[in-house]
């Protein structure tokens, strides 16, 4: 007795409908929540209660939503940088380290200080942004050089450099620039604070307590810029070509080594800028654990966005929600679990883009 249905897998020949990648990503997020719920049941918790709390913590009020955008800001920058690198098949996961280096370099402007602290705010902040970009960019250059000239696996070097950067930062915040022995530097002078919406609350009371800062604009500009570059510049085309077929790119005369360096520097610079935006916009000093794993979540964001910087924006906001809610609920690893599951499901479901699964009724044999 054969089953009345036949399940067959066929290669997709036609173009994928435009909505499908997005639908699959969304589906993956939903399924990730469901599976996490089941795991929570196993641990003896009530998933519905936790998820409701989760949702309220994240989207319950304007204040909470602004917190989400604040968390999404570094994700947008780091995720955009990753899109660029991944597009070229350079799997850099050094965003975390580059973020810390950017934060460190930017902080030097105030800590050394590199300019008198009674300079105009715009000068101080611009210099800090520049330093953040330089710090992150240089830190991205190291694995870039190792990859381009010595063919050293960039996944491992970037990861190792993440650990190095955290220790580097710790040295300065525990040692030289420590605030009276605490694991942080003194709070920056106000001149080094990125403007926040809350600053406008005198005129617009609605904004009081709203923590959203100017960094989000950096993120949006970066995402749009990289999107335009990838989509419609010659250089963007080169990158995509190298990613798809390095040999063809080489025959076409594309300088692969130079592009590896460029891509690593730019993605590092974006992560560095994220670090600058975090110290000037959120914590207002250099301290331990300024990143809630942005460098890692950024990887997932970039992949969920199918390496499209514009899609990085909404997905970063979603993940910002996960991070904000994750701060407040137990078990604390939950947001990590959901993020990991989501990525896992997204790449598993990618096969749906390449293959069709058809369920057909078995033909009755002619009588």
């Amino acid at each position, binding site marked *: 007795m054969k089953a009345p249905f036949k399940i067959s897998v066929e290669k997709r020949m036609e173009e994928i409908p435009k909505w499908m990648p997005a639908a699959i990503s969304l589906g993956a997020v939903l399924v990730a929540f469901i599976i*996490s719920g089941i*795991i*929570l049941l*196993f*641990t003896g918790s009530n998933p519905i209660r936790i998820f409701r709390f989760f949702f309220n913590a994240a989207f319950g009020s304007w204040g909470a939503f602004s917190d989400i955008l604040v968390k999404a800001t570094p994700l947008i920058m780091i995720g955009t940088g990753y899109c660029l690198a991944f597009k070229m098949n350079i*799997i850099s*996961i050094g965003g975390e380290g580059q973020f810390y280096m950017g934060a460190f370099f930017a902080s030097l402007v105030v800590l050394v200080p590199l300019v008198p602290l009674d300079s105009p705010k715009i000068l101080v902040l611009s210099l800090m942004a520049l330093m953040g970009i330089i710090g992150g960019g240089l830190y991205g250059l190291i694995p870039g050089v*190792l990859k381009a000239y*010595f*063919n*050293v*696996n960039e*996944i*491992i*070097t970037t*990861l*190792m*450099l993440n*650990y*190095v950067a955290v*220790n*580097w930062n*710790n*040295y300065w915040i*525990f*040692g*030289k620039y420590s605030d009276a022995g605490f694991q942080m530097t003194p709070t920056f002078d106000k001149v080094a604070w990125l403007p926040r919406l809350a600053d406008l609350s005198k005129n617009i009371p609605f904004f009081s307590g709203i923590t959203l800062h100017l960094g989000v604009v950096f993120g949006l500009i970066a995402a749009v810029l990289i999107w335009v570059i990838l989509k419609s510049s010659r250089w963007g085309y080169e990158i995509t070509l190298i990613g798809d077929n390095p040999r063809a790119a080489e025959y076409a005369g594309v300088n692969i080594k130079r592009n590896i360096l460029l891509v690593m520097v730019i993605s590092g610079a974006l992560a560095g800028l994220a670090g600058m935006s975090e110290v000037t916009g959120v914590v207002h000093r250099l301290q331990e654990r300024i990143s809630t794993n942005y460098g*890692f979540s950024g*990887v*997932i964001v970039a*992949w969920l966005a199918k390496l499209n910087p514009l899609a990085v924006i909404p997905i970063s906001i979603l993940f910002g929600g996960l991070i904000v809610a994750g701060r407040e609920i*137990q*078990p*604390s*690893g*939950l*947001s*990590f*679990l*959901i*993020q*990991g*599951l989501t*990525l*896992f499901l997204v*790449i*598993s479901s*990618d*096969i749906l883009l*390449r293959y069709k699964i058809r369920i057909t009724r078995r033909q009755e044999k002619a009588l």
Partner: protein
Amino acid sequence: MNIEAIIRAGLSTGTILIFAAIGEILAERSGVMNLGLEGVMLVGAMAAFKTSHVTQNAWLGLIAGILAGGILSLAHGLVSIHLQADQTVSGLSLTFLGTGLALVLGEGLTGLNVPTLPNVDIPLLSSIPGIGRIFFSDFNILVYVGYILIPLSWYFIFKTRPGMHLRAVGEKPSAADSLGINVYGTRYLYTFIGGCLAGLAGASISIAISSGWYSNLTTSGQGWIAIALVIFARWNPIPAAMGGYLFGMLRRFTLDLQGPMSILGFRNPFFYDHNLVFFLQMVPFLLTIIALLWGSGAARRKRLGAPTALGVPYVRGERGM
């Protein structure tokens, strides 16, 4: 600072890396690259610790840790073998997934005291003067398992028939397939075994060698170092093991450096400025990069590389591998 203590510490903590690296070598020799070691190890460590806590039996904990690692890796196997996904990304996602899983299921375990695997002497060998005391006495039982696993895995890969099949599947799956070797089956098997060994590595952290559960700090990057060892060792268990032991010794050495007030007559900076220790903590990670750099140079000179089909999904009848 005591050379004997450093060697012994290296043999002990190196064992963790060696389990993970040998597991990864087996998986990669079959063509499946599992970059999720860090997550798999963490899940293994958590499962072993939790089981040992619940059952009050470290041996059951060990089994749980091994199986947890194997089962989690099968998920990666499914995605990269049948679903033909990008193994790099799948491995990365396994790291996140494993970390999340270990944190959620390991909630509330920090600080508990659980039964651990015993330290033992090897009869006869431990009484050899000098060598016996350094290599065969008072080690955790898993350290000796490591001793045996190293030559055994080397022999298996290079000198036995199933080992040859394993390499064939990783080098040229289409040829292996035409000889009647089950490519998918082989890949699943070694992905599972590799995961089991990563789980064992995790378990050897939490319930044997440095026993304890410190949430995601339990593994602190050792899974990644193990992957680097595999590349550095050119997919051969013996150099991987040497590298693993060396790493273990180095780790102990950097700890010991912090103790004395003076070294060879010089003022010890690490003693006087404790913050400099952060630079010592960078050493294993920097050394990993240097090892990879050195390994990649040697590889190009000798034209030794990864298994040819590493990371490439096999589809019967398709061009390519």
